[in-house]
């Protein structure tokens, strides 16, 4: 049975909710009442529940199986966190209630901030960014504000390694910086000499992911930090890969000035098919005064919120998002942190790195690893091993789907050809890795045996086979239109 669109299932005269009658009261819409219908379908509750249940059954999540999507940290999402986020004391509280009535909510934010600062060794944290890219924006604006405060607004060049996430250059550009790429060494790390050669009086910052997107720790990070500081710039660290070092290494000890933290990666708030995320940004002393509003401040055990660029917050660069940030995500992340504790988080990064290296060690004789290990929490292969097989990285990934796995990240980072980036995370057990390794080896054998056709045809066992993305982009259909209207329009 195919599942139609919700609009195709509706029929006027049904109700999926029961509402009380409206009281008699004057209409005060001032003549601006809606005329004509909206076009929404009418359904009863059983139909709606079944529709979305069936849709869910066409999805693959961490709960469904192994999800080794590199750079995305698809780790287990504890249900305790969901339960905690639904405590009415958090979920049913308005952001503009009197401050006296939300002391517990502010305490939670302050407690989470304390954990983030302690884990990173940084003195301050901006809580309001809604996601990683928003955190990047926050950090880069703080840098721009700090430069302005120093009277160095002429510093507009930002150095970004070629292997960076796309959000890095996009963010820098959005704030009016120019992006200057730094090449990588053959070892998959920043080319220190090339980097130093690019330093100059117009350099604002370097944006560096560490561990980097090749899954490698930037060995020269202290030297990079010193150099950028020496050149008068700031060190923005992309914290997407914090999971690899959380609890074991503090970014402050690496010399960073600011770093965003994807709560939905390292701290396990669910990805939810694309969000919501949360991207707090830790800041050094140099950048802290410019942190966005609002600031939560603990005043002798009672909490206040600074919402204006005045007093302590006089240098704040302003507001980034309405209200206080992604509270629901804060609760989940703190529940996760309290559950693991300092000792557990140490073990998180240990096991994440161990799992990735185990995959590297178990596959490197068959797959082609462009860089030497040890890797950190993820392992990168290129498509050399597929040379002359007629099988592409994409084909290989789609064949994995038929084996019951979510594919690894493909074609990222851009610095290696046909990249396959595998991140097992610490919440997978050895048996799962062993099974995955066996499947990977067997698929590689098949590819080399000249069965390209079978790979091209994959996946076969999914709700849909390969989808025509070109058609979608060439003739975009972004919404459903009632057939009678669609016809009339033609």
């Amino acid at each position, binding site marked *: 049975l195919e599942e139609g669109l919700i609009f195709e299932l509706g029929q006027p005269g049904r109700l999926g909710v029961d509402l*009380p009658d409206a009281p008699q009261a004057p209409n*005060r819409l001032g003549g601006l009442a809606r005329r004509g219908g909206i076009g929404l379908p009418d359904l009863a509750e059983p139909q709606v529940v079944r529709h979305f249940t069936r849709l869910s059954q066409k999805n693959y999540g961490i709960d469904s199986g192994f999800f080794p999507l590199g750079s995305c940290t698809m780790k287990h999402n504890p249900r305790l966190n969901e339960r905690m986020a639904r405590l009415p004391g958090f979920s049913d509280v308005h952001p503009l209630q009197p401050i006296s009535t939300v002391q517990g909510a502010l305490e939670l934010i302050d407690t989470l901030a304390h954990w983030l600062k302690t884990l990173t060794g940084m003195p301050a944290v901006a809580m309001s960014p809604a996601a990683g*890219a928003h955190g990047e924006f926050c950090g880069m604006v703080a840098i721009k504000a700090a430069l302005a405060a120093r009277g160095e607004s002429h510093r507009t060049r930002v150095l970004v390694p070629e292997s960076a996430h796309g959000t890095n250059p996009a963010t*820098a550009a959005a704030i009016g910086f120019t992006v200057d790429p730094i090449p990588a060494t053959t070892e998959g790390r920043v080319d220190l000499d090339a980097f130093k050669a690019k330093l100059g009086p117009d350099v604002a910052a370097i944006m560096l992911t560490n561990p980097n997107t090749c899954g490698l720790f930037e060995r020269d990070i202290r030297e990079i930090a010193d150099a950028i500081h020496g050149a008068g710039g700031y060190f923005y660290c992309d914290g997407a890969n914090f999971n690899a070092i959380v609890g074991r290494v503090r970014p402050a000890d690496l010399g960073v000035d600011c770093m965003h933290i994807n709560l939905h990666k390292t701290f396990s708030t669910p990805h939810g098919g694309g969000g919501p995320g949360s991207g707090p940004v830790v800041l050094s002393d140099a950048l802290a005064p410019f942190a966005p509003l609002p600031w939560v401040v603990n005043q002798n055990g009672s909490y206040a919120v600074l919402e204006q660029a005045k007093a302590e917050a006089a240098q704040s660069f302003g507001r980034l998002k309405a209200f206080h940030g992604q509270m629901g995500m804060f609760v989940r992340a703190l529940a996760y942190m309290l559950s693991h504790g300092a000792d557990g988080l140490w073990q998180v990064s240990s096991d994440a790195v161990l799992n990735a290296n185990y995959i590297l060690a178990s596959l490197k004789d068959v797959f082609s690893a462009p860089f030497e290990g040890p890797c950190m929490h993820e392992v990168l292969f290129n498509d050399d091993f597929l040379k002359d097989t007629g099988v592409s990285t994409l084909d290989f990934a789609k064949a994995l789907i038929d084996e019951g796995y979510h594919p690894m990240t493909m074609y990222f980072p851009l610095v290696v050809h046909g990249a396959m980036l595998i991140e097992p995370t610490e919440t997978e057990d050895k048996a799962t890795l062993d099974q995955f390794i066996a499947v990977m080896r067997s698929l590689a054998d098949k590819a080399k045996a000249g069965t390209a056709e079978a790979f091209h045809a994959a996946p076969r066992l999914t709700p849909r086979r390969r989808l025509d993305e070109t058609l979608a982009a060439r003739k975009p259909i972004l*919404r459903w239109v009632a057939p009678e209207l669609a016809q009339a329009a033609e």
Partner: protein
Amino acid sequence: MRYLPLTEADRRAMLATIGAPSVDALFKDVPAAAVRRAPVDLPHHAGELSVERQLKAMAGKNLVAGEVPFFVGAGAYRHHVPASVDYIIQRGEFLTAYTPYQPEIAQGTLQYLFEFQTQVAMLTGMEVANASMYDGSTACVEAVVMATRVTKRKKAILSGGLHPHYAEIAATHAAYGDFTLDSAAADPEGLEDLASRIDDQTACVVVQNPSVFGHIRDLTPLANAAHAKGALLVVVVTEAVSLGALMPPGAMGADIVVAEGQSIGSGLNFGGPYVGLFATREKYMRQMPGRLCGETVDADGKRGWVLTLSTREQHIRREKATSNICTNAGLCALAFTVHLSLLGETGFTQLAALNHAKTSQLVEKLKAVPGVRVLNEAFFNEVTLVLPKDASAVVEALAQKRILAGVPAARLWPDHSDLKNHLLVAVTETVTDEDMDALVAGLKEVLA
């Protein structure tokens, strides 16, 4: 530790395969000075029972909206969300999925995003919508940036009826980005004239409807004025339920509509996560920020959905992207879609009518409170009162009586001494007659 399945025996065996003497050895690329020998100074791991106790203790220090007469709005609204919505979004196949980059095993996410986009377009009266933004406030500034891109102009006019947080965010982006703002003064009476500010440098006019003070206006004349100068009209909606009762922005000439979708499907959550709606005309489709889901066919010719037009996006386009946005508000968008599917045309319009009628009912009841003036002629479910006293003090006094009376304007405009007696009061379907009577009685007492 309950989330970590490796045993000590596993770890030893794996290290042997790797050929490393210890896990520490795998961290050999970390500079020695940064290598920690022990966990940081934070509490150690704790069981569920302990974590629950700690968090419940914090939660217990907040005054829960549902336990008191509640009239707080100003950009976030307390509506009833059916239990089945929360059930659906907790299903692991939705909750623990990633962004649907592998469409063959993400048709569930993709189909609801397509449904979401359609619903948003329908509600706003626009042609196309994206797959959601972080929230309404960030969607608003993305609309301004898009307008500058479309018009190749650099000035945005902001209404004095725009939520101050939204305006402040736009100001941040303006200060550190590539456009300027012409911001009108706060407009508690709902009488501002923006049309006269539009010139041929204007990229867009940003106006909120209902305004943050609760006023509703016909925006058609403003749209015409903007279009006459080659500018776009950006309409902001912070109470999505209003779209069930009011003429949609698209019908009044909006070019971009952004909205806070929290009212449909999401709880108050102390401010987040919420869901931003973003809709525009088809001709601007390729200028939109954020993800888009599009219809296509699979290798067998069956209808299916994929993320599309991603050449706009950062992971392809990098520094030339339409936005740096990556994450959207997937799960809140799902909640929106499920809730709106339950409501349907009939339920959604009924819900909007109910909200309005209850608000009108409260306005009638407030006539009994001496000294209180309602500023709004036309409104949806929120009005601005002028009290005979400092509104912040009144709200605090009522909070002590366990009545949450609304948002004092001073919370949003701390520097506007002429707004210090103004109070924003919102009414939804969750407000009972008894709640209204409690507010009226409370106000009488506090104002006496």
